[in-house]
């Protein structure tokens, strides 16, 4: 690995990033072979193959084989060859970055776009699309889907990707299943704690992939990523350094919940959309109904969903705190907790009635070691897969199984 130059190191990272083995064409940029723009495939790429063999395969870095599921257009062996960095080597590939900065502190995280987005719920949108955030019968939705932090981060990603043309989710090339978004995710994930990079580090990586001739403004891409909350930035001596955030929206290590909402009113809880993290909003969405009143977003307990999420409330620090602070929510929580489990509906099992004592005794004896339960009034319940065993015992004793189906076809 020590003998590899930076271009080759970047190439190896590119292979890891791609996940799937790469064809010989992927190595065009990294090889020093002259570019041949005419001739057959073999004529164009034989020099690249020679480079790969000499510089990578013989150094024991790359593995290769013939693709067993090639596309029908791949008629020559060279077209079918694929190259792969064994997973065992991934940890040993040197860092792709020429310059790293160690800086403590979270850096500057942009909240502007996220907060603007959350304000959408106050607007009246005539033609909502799949990404419109709104209230629907008291529930947060994005498009038609229930609001979750995950869905929100998908919006963030989509919004960021589509700022550019071609957008960041379009593959670099048709035979590279890699998008600029994937490259950014991968390379930023290589950063250690407190490690920061300049956007220029990514230019050579994009060049390595971007043989489609489209020059991308990497600095602008990273800057927009920061706007959308994916990166944190640190300005230092006229230079700006970036790293990824732990989540699309960082949660502070010591959250101050009272900054997220005001639980003091008896009739409702006021949500502070300018402060509340998306994850916290996700959590409260799972137990509350919302309404807008005089420009405020109010949350009220949703009895049914509180009943469904009792464990979540008990185990999540934010929701547990809310219960201690809001009598309104806590009363509902306690009521549902008290009622929980009083009615249990068992589903996806079989129930049978046995009208003959001898048959019942035989069933009890033969099914003693199975998960069959005998209930009062000559009933029994059992898992579906035991049916054939039960039927067999019934028929051996000279009886037949009469079936009553709640859902007759």
């Amino acid at each position, binding site marked *: 690995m020590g003998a590899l130059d930076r271009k080759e190191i970047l190439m190896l990272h590119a292979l890891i990033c791609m996940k799937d083995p790469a064809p010989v064409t992927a190595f065009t940029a990294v090889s020093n072979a002259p570019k041949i723009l005419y001739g057959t495939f073999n004529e164009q790429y034989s020099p690249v193959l020679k480079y790969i063999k000499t510089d990578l395969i013989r150094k024991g870095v790359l593995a290769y084989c013939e693709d067993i599921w090639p596309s029908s257009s791949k008629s020559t062996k060279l077209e079918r060859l694929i190259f792969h960095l064994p997973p065992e080597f991934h940890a040993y590939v040197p860092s792709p970055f020429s310059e790293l900065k160690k800086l403590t502190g979270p850096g500057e995280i942009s909240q502007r776009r996220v907060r603007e987005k959350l304000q959408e719920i106050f607007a009246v949108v005539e033609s909502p699309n799949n990404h419109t955030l709104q209230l629907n019968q008291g529930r947060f939705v994005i498009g038609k889907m229930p609001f979750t932090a995950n869905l929100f981060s998908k919006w963030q990603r989509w919004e960021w990707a589509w700022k550019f043309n071609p957008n960041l989710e379009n593959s670099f090339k048709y035979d590279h299943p890699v998008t600029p978004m994937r490259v950014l995710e991968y390379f930023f994930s290589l950063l250690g704690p407190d490690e920061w990079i300049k956007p220029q580090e990514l230019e050579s990586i994009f060049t390595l992939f971007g043989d489609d001739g489209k020059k991308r403004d990497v600095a602008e891409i990273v800057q927009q990523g920061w706007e959308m909350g994916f990166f944190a930035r640190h300005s230092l001596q006229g230079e700006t350094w970036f790293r990824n955030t732990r989540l699309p929206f960082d949660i502070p290590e010591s959250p101050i919940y009272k900054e997220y909402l005001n639980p003091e009113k008896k009739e409702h809880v006021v949500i502070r959309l300018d402060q509340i993290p998306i994850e916290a909003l996700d959590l409260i969405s799972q137990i509350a109904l919302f309404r807008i009143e005089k420009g405020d977003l109010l949350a009220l307990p949703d*009895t*049914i969903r509180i*009943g*469904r999420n*009792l*464990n979540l409330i008990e185990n999540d620090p934010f929701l547990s705190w809310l219960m201690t602070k809001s009598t309104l929510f806590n009363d509902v929580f306690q*009521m*549902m*907790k008290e*009622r*929980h*489990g*009083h*009615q*249990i*509906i*068992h*589903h*996806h*099992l*079989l*129930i*049978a*009635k*046995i*009208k*003959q004592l001898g*048959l019942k005794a035989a069933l009890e004896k033969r099914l*003693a*070691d199975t*998960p069959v*339960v*005998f*209930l*009062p*009034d000559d*009933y029994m*319940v059992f*898992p*579906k*897969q*035991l*049916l054939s065993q039960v039927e067999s015992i*019934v*028929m051996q004793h*000279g*009886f*037949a*199984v*009469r*079936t*009553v*189906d*709640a*859902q007759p076809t």
Partner: protein
Amino acid sequence: MTSSNILLPLTPIEIQSLEIVRNSFNLRKDLHTFLRYVGEYDIKRSVRENTIPKGDAKRIARLLSDPKAKEEIDEDGSSSWLDFIDSLALTLKLIDYDTKGEYLGYSSSAPSYVDNYMQLNKETYAEFKKQSLQHQEKRVFQALVSDFKDSKNEFYTRSFFNRLDTFNSFGCATGVMPNLNFAETRHFLFDCLKNCDPGVWYKTSSLIQYLKKAHPFFLIPKNPKYKHYEKGGRYGNFRESESQLASDRIVNEKDPDAFERVEGRYVERFLEHIPLLLGYVELAYGDPINPGVYPSMGKVKGFKVTDLFLRFMRQEIPEPKITVHPNHEIHVEADFYPSAIIDQFSPFTDLITVDKISIFVLKKTKIIEYLAADESRDLKKLLETISHHPLPPNIVTELEEWSGHSDTFILYKNFGLLEGRNIPKMVEAHVEAVIGKDFRMIRGPETLFATLEAAEQAPVFITHGPEKLIPPPKNVTSLLIKKIAPPKKSVKPEINIKRKCYVTLSFPTKEAIDALTRLLVLERCPVEVDPKKQTLTYNAAHQKIVDSALETLKKTYRIKIEDLSV
């Protein structure tokens, strides 16, 4: 002797020296057997010949009443009886398949039948089976009588029995032939035959003479219409010859025996076709009266109509008579194959024989399953309704008892189980059954769950696994799960292994092994000697005897015993 009809003035005949032929195949049974097979299996007819493929043909042939059908298929690739049944089923529109085909290319000389699957017309067949036996027979009769398209008539087509040859079909599309209505002729002759005594063998020639005198134009009208070609007159289509393949001379209508040579031949062939096929007549064959002349004449010397035929013509075919016997047998007496009865009885009986009296046996296990499958079924009532006699008392008792057996184990599918303390009233609409104090069997568990949730009851919904019942979430106690018996710890079973040890001594010389063997035999010690390998094997329990013998052998040899490693 029929009382209401006037018998035809025909002459009886002695049949001792003649060969009697009757149709021994059960056409009606074979028709239903064939239809059942077509309904159960996908049969794709061959592309070129449009025939049933050999595999299927053999399988069907095994089920038919023609014992030689399978043999024919092995030798010739087809069976004429099966082909006939196939054709009859198609004519009755009980099955469907393409008979026209398509020419696949410019150079095709014959049509091809690609993907030509045989379809059973289930509704038509079901409707056919529902009809009375009289009506079913009438449909078969009509289908055969009305079928004379494409020279399919007695003059030009050999019957299934194939004993009588045919006229040469040269010119059959011209002259009187295209305008002859064979259906009418056949109906007329059947009407004549119904005026015969069923117990009597009649001379065929007497029937022909009767027709000549009383109905000379029963086949060819007095003033027939001609198509394209009038030369030769009314018998211009009919040629005789001294050679089977030739067609030398037209029958001259002015000849005194012209009627016998044309209509007479027709009558013989008529008798050999539909009447013999349907079992309406029996025929007596002898030598032709004009040997050396084709087609033959006078081979069918005599005929006899059957009772079955007369019952059919008088529309007196009775419905099957059903009798239930105390020995669990059900006897079904029917003139024809009682397909509807067989279908009706198959779920709860075994069919033993099929004949004029078919025998079924009531089977307890089948009855219990039959009744369990549908609680509205009442087998006792069904048998009481259709049986000609009251049911034997023991059968009544047993049916009642077996009916109880069918109701002993009831399986409830797609129901849920509600478990709870103080079960609220709102669930009542969903309750199918109350099980003790704490359980209810319910319909629509998901709907009930939503109802309970909406009523702020905080219900728990457990979807159990296919193999085991899933415990409830933490902090929730379920009586159902508590009731599951813990699996018994498996106790290791004890097994007694018996061991026998054997010792094998390997000797360098034959003399040494023989010497030891003799000593051991004298001591009555059982040994096994392999002369080729020069080894001697004995049970280790006899070690002391062997040691003693070896000591004796030491008088003759210096012995060193070496233990071999494995």
